[in-house]
């Protein structure tokens, strides 16, 4: 199961037939295993990793450090869920250290993100403060380098 997850994590678009050969299983076995992983919520979804700087140069991504006052019942969870519900929000993490929630937000331009922070995020009752940091350039994302490296030359036949 570890190998299956690892391969899908690298390339979820890999044909089932190839997966079967790599893992030494039948295609039906592979399909069943994947179905089970999806059902168990182990696999939540499949994405293409897009070079957003190429796709839409105007788009912005912000990492927002949010300090909140935890609630007596439920701690950070209810407020984190509330933030996560907005479709602008890509990811929400509870962090150790100087702030509580790290919120990754995507917008089609700077103003869109700014208005989200001003109108939606900072107005939530238990939010104490927001520090918004915009992404300037991406070097590596989801384990993939953005600059496409040319494969170094190797001898075509060697002992």
């Amino acid at each position: 199961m570890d190998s299956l997850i690892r391969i899908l994590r690298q390339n979820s678009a890999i044909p089932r037939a190839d997966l079967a050969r790599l893992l030494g299983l039948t295609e039906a076995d592979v399909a069943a295993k994947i179905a089970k992983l999806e059902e168990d919520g182990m696999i939540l979804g499949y994405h293409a990793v897009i070079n957003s700087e190429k796709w839409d140069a105007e788009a912005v991504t912000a990492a927002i450090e949010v300090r909140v006052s935890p609630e007596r019942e439920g701690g950070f969870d209810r407020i984190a869920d509330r933030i996560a519900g907005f479709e602008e929000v890509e990811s929400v993490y509870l962090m150790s250290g100087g702030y509580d929630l790290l919120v990754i937000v995507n917008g089609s331009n700077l103003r869109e993100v700014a208005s989200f922070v001003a109108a939606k995020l900072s107005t939530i009752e238990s939010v104490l403060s927001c520090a918004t940091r915009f992404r300037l350039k991406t070097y590596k994302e989801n384990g993939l380098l953005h600059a496409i490296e040319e494969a170094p030359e190797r001898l075509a036949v060697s002992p």
Partner: protein
Amino acid sequence: MNSRIAAHVRDIPRSGIRDFFEIVQSMKGVVSLGIGEPDFVTPWHIREAAVYSLEKGRTGYTSNLGDPRLRRSIAKYVEQHFSIAYNPHDEIIVTVGVSEGIDLALRALLNPGDEVLYHEPCYVSYNPSIALAGGRAVAVTTHAEDEFVLRAADLEKAVTPRTRVLMLSFPTNPTGAVMPPDELARIAAFAVNHDLVVLTDEIYSELTYDDLPHHSIAALPGMKERTLFLHGFSKAFAMTGWRIGFACGPSDIIEAMMKIHQYSIMCASTMAQEAAIEALERGQRSMERMREEYRLRRNFIVSSLNDAGIPCHLPKGAFYVFPEIRGTGLTSKEFSLALLKEKNVAVVPGTAFGPSGEGYVRCSYAAALDQIKIAIERIAEFVRG
């Protein structure tokens, strides 16, 4: 013109791989399964350590035996992974790849006419290295139906009073064979009975699959004092171009090897030694990641070849498969040449690894999955005719 070349060099045939390489070089767009090195670049943390050492100006010679820090790392690594304890002070020498280690060992051990037993099909350099060291190479054939395991019984048939050395290399290039522990024990007993020095090239030892443990003959009782353990960084850590390896063994043999090494090489490249320390100290994770990748590709290539009607056993180690192509009615060389010309796919004829490789070709799966896929599709088309 030939007359100015020394006879013992002139008589050595060029490597079959070299001939084939030149044909491949002259062609465009070849999909190659002929590559005997990892398709991974050396892991970044290892490259970075070498860069750092250059920044620090570590560019001088090291001790002839190799940087003491590296020898200590080697001793620790070999003890941990192979259960053999060597003294870094006088039982370890750092070499320019295992190739140099083999050359040094044979030159240090052989008197003219001494016989060396080795198993075949095997790496291309064994036979000529023995000849260059003045020895007589005696090949013992291993067989596909036995998964290319070396049998002590076959060694018994080939041993003579002139036999001095037994060369082993498991996992094997080109067959991917590994030795079952019971047979390895029989071979150890054989070496003791005939008082042979065992030279064991374990360059692929990290690359065994399906949690199969690797056993070194040097770790068996009574073997350390007669065994030279050769290993390197090329395969496990994807460091072929660094040319760095090592030999561990009894101090008298290491001392003799050091004499030759000191006058011919001086010491292995200093920056490669720095990189090697990093590989041993912190390379385990990258090695395991690459090994898992090889394992998956091995499964892929074996099942694809068998489905295409090309019989191929599932090798337990290294990164080669050695499918049988007799069914095509072609020799290994004819098969490889025709496949290259008609389908632009390079594999290596089995005979490059000794006459007993006839009827087989070596396909390396140290290649990207999409390349393997294309190559196998074309091989399947070729075989269907």
